């Protein structure tokens, strides 16, 4: 198959679209309720010593955040690629690394804040990429890449909303900034992005850091509910990585810097 000529998908797009619709329905039937239940369990299971405001308030808040959280972040961030645009990425809502995580957070809530900041950064990065791609600054954009970025961004938005929902339920402010440690790294990488392949490599870096951070936290988190939420997100970031590699024509899985497939995912890039 690999040696056959590439063909367009005119005759089969309908079938795939139908499958995608089914997947969307599955997502809303299974994924969203699972998220709500998982986060609700986390709220009830965490032993932070601070009573959550209420489960119902959180669930409403999480839903609203999932629906509009990304928009707030993007509006505030004015996403752009330094290498593809004259606008500066410094418009991001960042915070001094010394002031992060916010004071008053302890235990698993610290992890929730860091996780939200990582997800915010991913949302920003995909938004920036889509903006630059739409503006024609990255050359020809394969349709699968555009779909990937849009879908991955939506999922990261939901991840951020889930962690922020937890923070809110404990009376803490939602984290709307991007991770202060990683943001300068991403800004630097953005400055070098000139095409889709470069953007995909940057996305792989972000997804890898997120996945490995969640993986490392699995054995550090205290509450079972928090572990469950973290563990439900980590494999999804790994799936993003697999598809990115596939689109780039590389082995579609965890691998060494030399491209050697790995049976065990490392944590050397975890925050």
């Amino acid at each position, binding site marked *: *198959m*690999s040696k*056959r000529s*590439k*063909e*367009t*998908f005119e*005759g*089969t*797009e309908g079938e*795939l*679209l139908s*499958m995608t619709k089914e*997947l969307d329905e599955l997502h809303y039937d*299974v*994924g*969203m309720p*699972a*998220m709500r239940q*998982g986060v609700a369990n986390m709220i009830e299971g965490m032993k932070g010593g601070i009573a959550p405001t209420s489960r119902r308030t959180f669930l409403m808040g999480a839903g609203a955040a999932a629906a509009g959280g990304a928009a707030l972040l993007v509006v505030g961030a004015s996403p752009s690629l330094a290498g593809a645009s004259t606008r500066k990425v410094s418009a991001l809502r960042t915070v001094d690394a010394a002031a992060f995580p916010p004071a008053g957070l302890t235990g698993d809530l610290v992890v929730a804040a860091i996780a939200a900041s990582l997800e915010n950064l991913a949302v920003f990065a995909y938004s920036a990429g889509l903006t630059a791609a739409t503006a024609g600054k990255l050359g020809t954009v*394969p*349709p*699968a*890449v*555009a*779909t990937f970025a*849009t879908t991955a961004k939506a*999922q990261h938005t*939901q*991840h951020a909303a889930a962690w922020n929902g937890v923070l809110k339920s404990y009376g803490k402010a939602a984290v709307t900034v991007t991770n202060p440690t990683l943001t300068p790294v991403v800004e630097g990488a953005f400055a070098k992005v000139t095409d889709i392949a470069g953007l995909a490599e940057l996305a792989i870096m972000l997804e890898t850091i997120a996945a490995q951070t969640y993986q490392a936290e*699995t*054995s550090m988190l205290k509450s079972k509910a928090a*572990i*469950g939420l973290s*563990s*439900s997100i*980590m*494999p*999804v*970031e*790994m*799936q*993003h990585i*697999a*598809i990115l590699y*596939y*689109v780039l*024509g*590389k*082995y*579609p899985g*965890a691998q060494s810097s030399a*491209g*050697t*497939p*790995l*049976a*065990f*995912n490392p*944590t050397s890039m975890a925050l």
Partner: protein
Amino acid sequence: MTADPRALAELLEESQDMQADALRPTHAALDELVELSHASPDDDPASNLAFHEEHKRSLTSSLGATSILGAAGGLALVGVLASAAAASSSSDVQILQTAASIENLAVATYKTALTLPYIGGSAADPVVTKFCQVTMGQHAQHADAFNAAVKHLHGKVQHKPDPAFVPVVNKAVASLGSATAAQGALGVVGLALELENIAAETYIHDTVLAKSKTNKALFASIMGIEAQHVSVLLAVQALLKAGAPQLISLAPGTGAALPAVAGSIGFPNAFYPTSSAAPAKQGAVK
């Protein structure tokens, strides 16, 4: 995976070296696991009884809701699989044994698949063949890692496949005998997809169930790998169903030729579910 089978073979060889390196810290951490286990209340009878009851309920619920397991023997399995004898082992040993049994089944399934002409024969796509080989090798390493953890806890290693899923696999494999190459390839992908998803969901759930940090870390290091296998298989399945097997390729230019929906079909859920996770002691050694 690569467009050049020889290059992938080299990668596979390098991978085996890499895995040995990667497993070193895991084995080192197993010493910690033993200490943690000895310090934990795993062997406390009350704890074991509670664990037993919890997972008996879980198993009953799973069997009641899952047609696959129903085909494997239905509720009659509850008494066998959730026997008190199995509950005498520590909970971490049981979930590790179950994990090993799932990996053993995955290895056997890929091994069988590779004997089929359209998966491992001359008529097969070399990329698909190599993917199956690499993936089978990874599952073998996962099984070894789970069994190493079991041994460090003085449990019995699990070299058998998960008993609840064996009939399902056997039935699926038997049905491939009369299938065309296209049908057979889809059947194999569908079966592999189901097994990979069960593995991923089980290990996600096990990160919560495991008592020792080392075991949690072990499950966490593998669950994402299985989820990636799921992603690849979802994409391959979609391309096969759409009649575009030529796009199952890592050759330059393939990414640009992929249809839009191929960019999202590999990750259908923002939060990975665990509703198909195998009951914790389903594959425990009795």
